């Protein structure tokens, strides 16, 4: 019998290893970035792991969107210092498509319109580009997959043949981003104000779609938003308050609730206080950002 027991132990161990392998980590380390000489990220620290939902909240103009664009490698921004790691490797030198292929995804706040390129054609190309030949899908098979995902997101099938985001309503564009995310099945997704411009029903569909991915494929999510509304549908494990280019306070759902009650104004103060209590010697003092508050 002892022999048998040993065998089971080995099996359990292998399974455990498999699970650990499936955990991906995206880490932003003391990141400073600028655009045209103007500092926009001023020391961001953030770690997101598979299956975690992080909410990044902050007033307009605080640099929330910049952070997600920088993580995907937007060419307009210059990294001044710090690092971005994916599973331990620095990705700063990687092109946007390398980052995407590794498993990062950005749901754009303003998805661009690409006339002349159909949703189906675009997504099939993107899907197949990041897969080895034997795992690529034929037109027929891909269309079946697409149809199924569109159904989940309550999108009419005809949308697949429309040109990418061209003439889409705000809500259609946002839903389209979630569709792309569902098809491309990334490891870590940055959702840049995906909730803004959605009505309650659409918000629920989008949040549910996202929650499914977190649950089923252990997607790690950074939800960039300035309305706490979506957080009722997609419960975050961590809430970060982002002011003037950096995270000033982190907490749980209670932090989001506080924002909901009192707005950013009061939190910025506490945030600033919180910062000052654990301020690093090299950080610049946070200037007041009242004009950007709700």
């Amino acid at each position, binding site marked *: 019998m002892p022999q048998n027991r040993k065998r089971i132990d080995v099996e359990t161990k292998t399974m455990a290893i498999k699970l650990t392998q499936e955990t991906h980590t995206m880490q932003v380390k003391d990141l400073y970035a600028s655009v045209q000489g103007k500092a926009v990220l001023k020391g961001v620290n953030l770690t997101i792991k598979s299956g975690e939902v992080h909410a990044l909240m902050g007033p307009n103009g605080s640099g929330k969107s910049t952070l997600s664009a920088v993580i995907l490698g937007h060419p307009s921004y210059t990294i001044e210092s710090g690092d971005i790691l994916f599973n331990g490797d620095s990705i700063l030198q990687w092109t946007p*498509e390398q980052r995407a292929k590794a498993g990062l995804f950005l749901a754009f706040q303003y998805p*661009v319109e*690409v006339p002349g390129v159909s949703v189906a054609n*675009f997504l099939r190309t993107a899907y197949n*580009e990041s897969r080895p030949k034997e795992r*690529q899908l034929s037109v027929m098979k891909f269309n079946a997959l697409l149809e199924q995902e569109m159904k989940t997101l309550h999108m009419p099938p005809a949308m697949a043949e429309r040109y990418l985001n061209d003439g889409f309503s705000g809500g259609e564009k946002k839903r389209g981003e979630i569709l792309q995310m569902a098809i*491309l099945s990334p490891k870590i997704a940055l959702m840049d104000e995906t909730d803004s411009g959605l009505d309650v029903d659409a918000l629920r569909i989008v949040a549910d779609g996202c929650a499914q991915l977190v649950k089923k494929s252990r997607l790690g999510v950074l939800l960039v938003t300035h309305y706490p509304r979506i957080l009722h549908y997609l419960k975050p494990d961590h809430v970060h308050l982002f002011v003037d280019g950096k995270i000033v306070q982190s907490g749980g759902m209670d932090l989001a609730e506080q924002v909901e009650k009192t707005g950013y104004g009061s939190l910025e103060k506490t945030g600033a206080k919180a910062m000052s209590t654990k301020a690093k010697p090299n950080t610049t003092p946070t200037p007041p950002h009242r004009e950007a508050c709700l």
Partner: protein
Amino acid sequence: MENVQLKQKLSGEYQFGFHDDIDNVFEFKKGLNEKVVRQISKIKKEPEWMLQKRLEALNIFYSKPMPKWGADLGHIDFDDIIYYASATKKQYGNWDDVPQKLKDTFEKLGIPEAERKFLAGVGSQYDSEVIYHKLREDLEKQGVVFLDMDSGLREHEDIVRKYFGSVIPSGDNKFAALNTAVWSGGSFLYVPKGVHVEVPLQAYFRINTKNMGQFERTLIIAEPGSSVHYQEGCSAPVYTTDALHSAVVEIIALEGSRVQYTTIQNWSNDVYNLVTKRAKAYKDATMFWLDGNIGSRVTMKYPAVLLMEPGARGEVVSVAIAGKGQHQDAGAKIFHLAPNTSSLITSKSISKDGGRTTYRGKVYVAPYAFNVKCNVECDALILDEQSASDTVPYMEIQNDDVSISHEASVSKLDSEKLFYLQSRGLSEQKAKAMLVQGFIEPFVKQLPMEYAVELNRLVDMEMEGSVG
């Protein structure tokens, strides 16, 4: 999905740069004179009136100066061109009778088997002579005539005599005169009253004799209430000296007919492609030119529609891609010569690697042509700093009762769009190719499936060469 063979062919140097060593049965010496013209006519056993037309055109050719308003034609040496060549003496009505060597050539050009079956007839011009011509039986039963132009003249002299030069007279321009003097091959297509040709008719052209110009002549007549779609695709082997391709295409679309003429020219990058294409559209007829220019060193081509009678409609949808050392000077001409006529011009051009595109267009509305509608849209995409694009639109409107719009845009590839596509895992070149494909989609969507696939692949390959 990736076609490795095509990829190899399309990367860098011109892909169809092979030529086989088929003996030319009637090999003419270089140069142009009256003797050459008489000899061409004699070999073809033409009627006297055609010979006279040729000789008259030769004089017009001599008397006209080289056009200076467009692309640089300074390198054309008319004395360094062979004006007639023939690969085979006889016509082939049956594919089995076509020499294996020529079949191999078509194989290399990648004309798919399925296409041959699908298409009703293939008129392939090999050197100056049409070597293979077959028309499916049901078309014959309908009375459709699809022949090479030489046979057309022999078998339907009365029709040819009536329409030859009626749309583009010899005196129209220097190169139309040259074509009229030395024309050989091309297609003759006659669609009887009320007949709808359901499948596109297709012809492949190719230059295969060193320094040989190709002067094909095409005449299409659509009788009242008929419809037809004619496709022309070109490919030529590479030669170090310049080759000249100077074709004339005349189309007569009679009352209530619809004619579509589709071209994607992909001549090798040493060819001067100077082509005159014009159609007359009569009462309620529609003429549609779909014109793609990818190859050649210099192209000057402005498909034209003369809207002769009320209700006529003319459309020209074109795309031009100019790469290194290329100048695509292309556009459209529409003449509103009757009331209640309408037209649409859509032009898309892409210049890259130092290439140059020019949109040159003319819209004319006659004083008595009331209630005319005309929309012109030309968009240029410039992919790098070395490349250029010009727009030369010309409009002459002789009355007030018209609705005319003209939109023009010049743009570069949008970096936000590129980032968006790249953030989905597309490489920079793939993202660029996709934006270019989107840009020319209004053209591509009009193409038959196999052409569309081919063109999209071509753009993919072209973009591959322009990055990095």
